[in-house]
């Protein structure tokens, strides 16, 4: 797989068109790594001149900030900003809504201003520039629902880009009762991903999974590594993993193009 790093590019005196911010989940979590690979395959197919930071990338600080550790967050942010600015990065794409939100909204005040895109937005722009074509392939006609990640949807009001991509797959997109600005959280945000939930009478991810399963979809699509984990666990808990898959949109696109 062709994955150039910024260090290599700079050594060759080149500046990529866009930096792909992989994120911690995308680098280390098995389910998210699949998304990372699928995205890179598409970037390569569309001949996008990109690079990653590789070992120079470190956590954006989102989970630290949302757990209340502002100090650790700002240390992470400053470290990252120093690296990004040293490479004169202008445009960043990421497959994680949490990284997307943090770099886009919280870094500028700390000295890091970039054009930041979620991978669904980026793919949509490739599509409209004619650099990428999407066909339905194996997904044609399948019943799909889309779960809005909070940090993409409500937090940044990106509702259309993921849906536009799904439509391109020629599927039957059925919305859950709570979607877009009314979407229900998967339960992972605000650093909940890293701890057990407080006591209650249900797990949030199961509640959301139930809502999705009501539609009887073949695939629950999303655009966030944490949502993907939470919903995959939910589907397993409901013993539906045989009939319902949880996938990132980018995996679907890569599969449909036989990448």
């Amino acid at each position, binding site marked *: 797989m062709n994955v150039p790093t910024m260090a290599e590019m700079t050594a060759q005196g080149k500046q990529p068109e866009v930096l792909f911010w992989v994120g911690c989940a995308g*680098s280390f979590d098995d389910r998210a790594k699949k998304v990372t690979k699928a995205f890179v395959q598409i970037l390569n197919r569309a001949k996008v001149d990109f690079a990653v930071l590789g*070992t120079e990338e470190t956590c954006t600080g989102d989970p630290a900030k949302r757990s209340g*550790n502002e100090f650790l967050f700002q240390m992470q942010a400053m470290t990252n900003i120093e690296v990004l600015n040293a490479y004169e990065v202008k445009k960043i794409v990421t497959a994680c809504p949490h990284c997307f939100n943090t770099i886009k909204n919280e870094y500028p005040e700390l000295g890091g201003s970039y054009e930041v895109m979620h991978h669904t937005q980026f793919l949509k722009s490739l599509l409209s520039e004619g650099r990428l074509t999407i066909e339905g392939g194996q997904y044609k006609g399948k019943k799909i629902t889309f779960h809005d990640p909070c940090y993409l949807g409500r937090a940044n009001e990106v509702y259309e880009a993921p849906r536009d991509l799904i439509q391109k797959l020629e599927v039957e997109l059925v919305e859950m009762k709570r979607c877009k600005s009314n979407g229900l959280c998967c339960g992972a945000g605000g650093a909940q991903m890293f701890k057990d939930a407080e006591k209650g009478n249900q797990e949030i991810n199961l509640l959301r999974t139930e809502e999705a399963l009501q539609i009887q979809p073949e695939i629950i699509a999303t655009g966030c590594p944490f949502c993907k984990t939470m919903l995959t666990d939910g589907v397993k808990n409901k013993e539906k993993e045989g009939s319902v898959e949880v996938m990132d949109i980018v995996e679907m696109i890569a599969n449909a193009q036989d990448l």
Partner: protein
Amino acid sequence: MHYIPNLLFAILCTVGIGFFVKNIQKLRRNILMGKPADRNDRSKERWKNMFRIALGQSKMVRRPVAGILHLVVYIGFVIINIEVLEIILDGLLGTHRLFSGWISFYGFLIGTFEILAVLVLLAVGVFWARRNLVKVKRFWSKEMTSWPKNDGNIILYFEVVLMGLFLTMNATDHSFQAMEAGNPVSQFIAPLFASFSETLLHLIERTAWWLHISGILLFLNYLYYSKHLHILLAFPNTFYANLEAKGKFDNNKTVRKEVETMMDPNADPYAVPEETSEPEKFGASDVQDLSWVQLMNAYTCTECGRCSSVCPANQTGKELSPRAIMMKTRDRLEEVGKNTDANQGVFKDDGKQLLKDYISPEELWACTSCNACVEECPVNIDPLSIIMDMRQYLVMEESAAPQELNAMMSNIENNGAPWQFNQQDRLNWKE
């Protein structure tokens, strides 16, 4: 002798309005106990938000039934208050239905008010049934006991009495009924009084008139103690609401200074930090640590519970309820205000604070920061920002994060990721 009613009326109004002004001053004082927050930019967008959300109630219709009923009561309330203007002038000048001589469409105007009054009565009836018979879930949560629950009903009874008095006043007004315009509703009530003597009728009419204006003054003074403060505060609250993307959380400025010094290669590592009177506190443990916008939020909260009804934590039985966060903030602020009043304007430590005495860490840690509460609030309140500020205090001042979060944070510190993976393996996914 002739002027006694006018005089009485003037006194009544002065007292009523005087107390109201005092309440407003206290409200302002309490809100300004909060820390500064700059919300004076982008005024065009702010005006637009205020018109759309407060005046136009645009966020209410996310729940169509409650939204439309509320609109009826709201319009009724605002428009019928035009009538109050006439009452005040009549009371002061000793005139009777002053506007009837001035305005050619007086009949039409009062007629509209009468119809609105009936619509308001209907809407209030449905509201009452939703609260007390249907028992809509969000009105029966655990924070909705005692005062909050009674408050909701008291206001409904208030409306019924006020509307009833307005219609009675019209129905028993002989000369008004004789106009045969503007009485589409009261003409059907008038026959009930047909057998009454003219003196008695006049007495009833006057009584209804006095009670009506007294009721309105009472209502005005009731506001300060009620969730109904929102009829006033919804306007500034939507005006000063956050305009940034909801996902953008404030970057703490004190922390920023420290981090910048630490990372600055030219900084003198042995420099003695500047003498400051008191080390700055990180995050919020009491109301004075919150910003004035957050405190205004607390007073504006209508206790409608829309936020909690969409909160993933609340819906899955966790302690957290964003509505309760707002209500507790207001309760504590009131307590601090009273304490300040009792101590010649200076708050005396009472050994209590918002954190733990009102809001438990368990509530705070249950939040997923999903912003559903913020999105849903009809008056643009931001419970999430209070939750985050209090988490910051817990972690940065008390190192009191849940164990697993401490582990996550030390991972970030040591290897740049929330899990225990080696920074050097970041590109291994490629294999």
